[in-house]
């Protein structure tokens, strides 16, 4: 019920449907829809929120029987789970893939068995796009593009030369798609805007590593004024390290403050935005349940669903120095994004 | 000299802190049995290991049939026609008897090992040597004696020119030794040169043609066996004259009071599957021997008393008080000590130093929270190194780098240090040189004089006759008799062991 951001977002892709807010039992018919859902794991709060959303929406109350499988971050487990679902004759398969690639064989098996597959969150790369029915998810590269665009405009507005931006990138776990997209977004912007990329090191999406890496970078004595953390947990660690070294964290780069940028926008992350410790937190929305529900309803009713559907994601800042940014979306089109100012209500509305 | 098949010249070998061999020469002729003699730690095993490539050759040369050879590994040695039984049984417990006999030279059918042939040939080999073992049985399940026989069988079955036997007879009984000797003579007649290491002088004179003596890593000399009397041989080994063993018992009076409460009184103690319920009483100051054929259950008997295998029937009284022993520590607390028969498996703690090996039992008895001070440990270790003349570079040397006999002495020291009231010695003289053997026998009698109760197990009946005041006889896991006083003679013992009226030992069958 607290899907505030879900409600706020509008599908950027062709789907013009308004989001169906409450899920009614499908078509009133007695038989429930069986759906096999293969989840990545439970490696972060974000993921846990995502699982909760799926389980909550696709519940027996709403006319579904869900077979849930946790893959423990292993692609091979997901492949096994999918094969299992096929043998169980499920009606639908929902897949939140550990990785983007490597799905050809098993998706073909599902197709042969006549089971529609809905991919959520990460995109899959397959040789034949008809192997899955629909995809709904985030675009990590666009997230990176947006955040960097915001930084560029912020510097312009505050009269800071782009070449004076000395940025540190605390990357996510190397090879994770969120890391790849967000790092790419940054690398592009560094090239385009002439920023100095002082250091680039992985914080493995954790607070402890984020802290350790930040400490080490600080000791190198290089000048830093922006820290680009690829998730909230890393940002918390980086902030601790900065403060322990006597630096001031904030947006006032000109007066020696160090700006921290982050992704995910969890409850704790937004709290830090409000405190002024995180300058910009770019959202990554985990609430896929209602979207999948909506799609299945359509498919059951024999309607067509869009093949690709991006979840629109917000950006959060302490104030509205920059109210909107225009950046390239997943398809390379320039898109306008609003920046939301964090208030207590916004924080309260975050369930994860 | 024309028929010398193996000649070693100027062999030296140093270990950290020890010069194990210095400039030793050795020659072996075709078709002779050549005894290699010396005290514990004289360097016999080391010489053999240098010869067979276990250790690198540091200096000197080895020639075989006039050709210079260098063995880098036992594999090379085997290729050069030298096959060896090393001092400690060295086979693989996880493989079957048959495999142990044939590994590395398995009969094959095409590409594959022919298991039928392995088993058949093993069976034949075992039968030829009268070894009681099923080729398909796991080696680890065989007793040490059988394992030793299997190691010998493996070595002799290879068509070798030189056969080396390093103390092969230490766990064998007379029958088996006799079998081995028959075999050795046969091989000799076929022209094989045999190097034979043993501490049993009788055996040397029974089969050997020549004798080479080592002392402290140096060559004393090589002699024709017929020209070297026993006394001189011992003198050469020890470097001093030596009074014969025969009479150590005199001077020790038998002060045992058979009417006193026994120190140990086992009533109906037994362990299912290994030893049937038996009664045994041991008094203060008494040395009681256990005798029987190989596998008669002597070891099992003492293990059941000591709690090494928890007894599942009967009661044990210590000094008249009924006690319950669940584990060895209980027995130790009641004043017992147990020197196990398998030194390598149950005795030494290989990587620990001599000092630690000596004090470990006492320390265990004292408990974890009463660590002995370093000074106490050093004193204890030094005392026993001195007392038992343990040959070691220092008290901090790991026990594994001591010679076999010296390891045994360390284990004896371990138990003497705990000052037990009742001491069980299972084959304490195995692998120990003549001089030390006498020392140990004397020691046993001294301990008895001090009022300790002792149970003594040995494969040598003479040795037991010299030390024991009473003997219990076992057969097939049953205690079948007890002998004392005048009954203590070879003939009576044999009679009881055999269980028949005609006396004399028969085959185990």
């Amino acid at each position, binding site marked *: 019920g607290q899907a505030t951001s879900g409600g706020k977002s509008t599908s950027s892709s062709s789907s013009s449907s308004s989001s169906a807010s409450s899920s009614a039992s499908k078509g009133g018919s007695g038989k429930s829809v069986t759906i096999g859902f293969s989840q990545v794991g439970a490696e972060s709060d974000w993921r846990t929120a995502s699982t909760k959303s799926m389980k909550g929406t696709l519940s027996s109350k709403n006319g579904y029987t869900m077979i849930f*499988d946790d893959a423990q971050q292993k692609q091979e487990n997901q492949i096994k789970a999918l094969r299992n679902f096929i043998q169980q004759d499920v009606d639908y398969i929902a897949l939140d893939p550990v990785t983007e690639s490597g799905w*050809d064989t098993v998706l073909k098996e599902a197709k042969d068995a006549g089971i529609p597959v809905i991919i959520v969150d990460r995109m899959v790369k397959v040789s034949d796009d008809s192997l899955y029915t629909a995809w709904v998810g985030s675009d990590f590269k666009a997230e990176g593009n947006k955040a960097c665009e915001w930084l560029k405009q912020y510097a312009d507005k505050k009269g800071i030369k782009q070449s004076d931006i000395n940025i540190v990138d605390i990357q996510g776990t190397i*090879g994770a798609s969120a890391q790849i997209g967000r790092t790419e977004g940054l690398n592009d912007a560094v090239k385009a805007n002439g920023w100095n990329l002082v250091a680039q090191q992985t914080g493995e999406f954790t607070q402890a590593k984020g802290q350790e890496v930040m400490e080490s970078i600080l000791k190198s004595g290089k000048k830093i004024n922006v820290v680009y953390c690829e998730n909230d947990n890393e940002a918390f660690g980086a902030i601790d390290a900065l403060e322990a070294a006597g630096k001031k964290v904030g947006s006032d780069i000109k007066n020696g403050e160090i700006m921290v940028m982050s992704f995910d926008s969890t409850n704790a992350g937004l709290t830090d935005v409000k405190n002024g410790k995180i300058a910009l937190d770019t959202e990554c929305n985990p609430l896929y349940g209602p979207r999948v529900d909506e799609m299945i309803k359509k498919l059951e009713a024999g309607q067509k669903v869009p093949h690709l559907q991006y979840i629109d994601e917000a950006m959060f800042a302490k104030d509205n120095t920059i109210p909107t940014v225009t950046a390239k979306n997943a398809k390379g089109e320039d898109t306008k994004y609003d920046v939301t100012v964090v208030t207590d209500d916004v924080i309260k509305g975050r369930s994860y | 000299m024309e028929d010398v098949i193996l000649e070693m010249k100027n062999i030296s070998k140093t270990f950290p802190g020890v010069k194990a061999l210095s400039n030793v020469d050795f020659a072996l002729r075709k078709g002779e049995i050549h005894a290699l003699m010396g005290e514990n730690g004289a360097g016999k095993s080391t010489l053999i290991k240098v010869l067979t490539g276990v250790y690198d050759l540091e200096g000197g040369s080895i020639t075989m049939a006039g050709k210079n050879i260098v063995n880098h590994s036992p594999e090379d040695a085997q290729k050069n026609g030298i096959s060896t039984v090393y001092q400690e049984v060295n086979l*693989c417990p996880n*493989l079957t008897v048959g495999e142990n006999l044939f590994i590395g030279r398995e009969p094959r059918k095409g590409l594959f090992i022919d298991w039928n042939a392995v088993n058949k040939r093993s069976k034949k080999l075992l039968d030829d040597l009268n070894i009681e073992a099923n080729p398909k049985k796991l080696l680890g399940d065989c007793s040490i004696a059988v394992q030793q026989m299997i190691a010998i069988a493996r070595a002799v079955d290879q068509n070798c020119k030189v056969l080396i036997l390093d103390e092969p007879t230490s766990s064998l009984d007379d029958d088996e030794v006799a079998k081995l000797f028959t075999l050795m003579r046969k091989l000799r007649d076929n022209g094989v040169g045999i190097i034979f290491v043993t501490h049993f002088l009788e055996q040397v004179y029974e089969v050997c043609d020549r004798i080479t003596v080592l002392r402290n890593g140096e060559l004393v000399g090589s002699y024709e066996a017929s020209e070297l009397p026993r006394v001189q041989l011992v003198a050469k080994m020890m470097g001093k004259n030596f009074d014969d063993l025969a009479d150590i018992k005199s001077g020790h009076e038998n002060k045992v009071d058979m009417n006193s409460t026994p120190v140990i009184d086992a009533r109906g103690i037994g362990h299912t599957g290994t030893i049937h319920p038996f009664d045994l009483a041991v008094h203060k100051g008494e040395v009681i021997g256990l005798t029987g054929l190989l596998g008669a259950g002597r070891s099992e008997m003492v293990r059941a008393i000591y709690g090494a295998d928890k007894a599942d029937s009967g009661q044990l009284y210590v000094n008249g008080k009924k006690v319950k022993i669940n584990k060895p520590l209980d027995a130790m607390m009641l004043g017992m000590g147990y020197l196990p028969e398998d030194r390598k498996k149950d005795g030494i703690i290989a990587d620990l130093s001599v000092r630690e090996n000596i004090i470990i039992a006492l320390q265990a008895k004292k408990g974890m929270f009463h660590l002995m001070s370093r000074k106490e440990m050093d004193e204890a270790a030094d005392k026993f190194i001195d007392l038992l003349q343990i040959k070691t570079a220092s008290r901090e040397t790991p026990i594994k780098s001591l010679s076999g006999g010296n390891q045994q002495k360390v284990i004896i020291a371990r138990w003497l240090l705990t000052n037990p009231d009742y001491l069980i010695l299972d084959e304490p003289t195995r692998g120990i040189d003549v001089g030390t053997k006498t020392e140990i026998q004397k020691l046993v009698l001294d301990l008895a004089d001090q009022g300790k109760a002792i149970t003594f197990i040995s494969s040598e009946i003479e040795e037991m006759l010299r030390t024991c005041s009473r003997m219990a006889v076992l057969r097939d896991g049953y205690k079948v008799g007890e002998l004392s006083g005048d009954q203590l003679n070879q003939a009576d013992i044999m009679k009881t062991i055999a269980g028949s009226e005609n006396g004399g030992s028969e085959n185990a069958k």
Partner: protein
Amino acid sequence: MKKAKLSKTGFLLLITIVMFAVMYIAGMIIFQDKGFAKPQMFLNLFISNAGLIVIACGLTIVMITGGIDISVGSVTALVCMSAADVMENKGMSAVFALFLALIIGLAFGVVQGYLVTYLKIQPFIITLAGMFFGRGLTAVISTKMISIKNKMFLAWANEKMYLPFGYTNRHGVLVHAYIYPTVVIALVVVVLIQIMLKFSKFGRALFAIGGNEQSAVLMGLNVKSTKMKAYVLDGFLAGLGGFLFCLNSCAGFVEQAKGLEMDAISAAVIGGTLLSGGVGTVVGTLFGVLITGTIQSLITTQGTLSSWWVRIVLSIMLCFFIVLQAIIGGAGLKKKDKGKEKTAKATT
């Protein structure tokens, strides 16, 4: 007395197989309505684990010598990544990729084998370094995922081999049960290695070394070259297994096959291989893989556990299995010993 003749290895293997059968049949009864009884469900165990089976076989070989290899997961990742990279970015053929996979495996085997055998470094540490190295090198090739789109490769990967039985699904479609060629390869490897272990000099030497390395030296076996060969063979099988793994996932990425070494080790151990060496069979290892696969499959079929309960239940079942095996194995062997002693006595 027939049973007493069973060797320790045979006895452990028997336990493993019986326990697998019991578990699987129980699953078929409990989850009858959920497709667990379908033949394809069983075949899927092989399809999804073909790579793991081959890798675990290699690991079993080094474990029999008393060694271990924890680099296999990383080697798999490296193999997948290199294969993906040469096919997608360098335009090489799938045959070349297979060749490369085997070369990589061999290279790991040779280097690790040399360090373990000739410099006598502890295998755990060397292969731990190998694990770091392989994973790092994977990232050096590319930190991005590479999807394999090579035609020939996909043809290999998707070549279903239909079996003459199947079932009719809900939509009325008759679905033939099928396997992939990878399964055949894996089973052939199992059979070949089992024959090698049982019937070749090399195979028996492996057991001798694991039983007592020093004795093996003194018995005149060439311990060094045997151990070296064991590691090389293990590396080769890791390369081959990695390639089969790749055929299943058709991609290369840094995090791939993480923790695969633990799966392989536990499969081998459940199958009756001792980490201390000297005991083990690859048939047992195969069943080890099937058992862990079945446990996973049971959990997936059940389908209502939350993420953390999946882990907990998985390990409870693993624990149950290992403990049961330890108890049955321990008790059985003890009883057998006694039986043996009695026979020995009877013949005396």
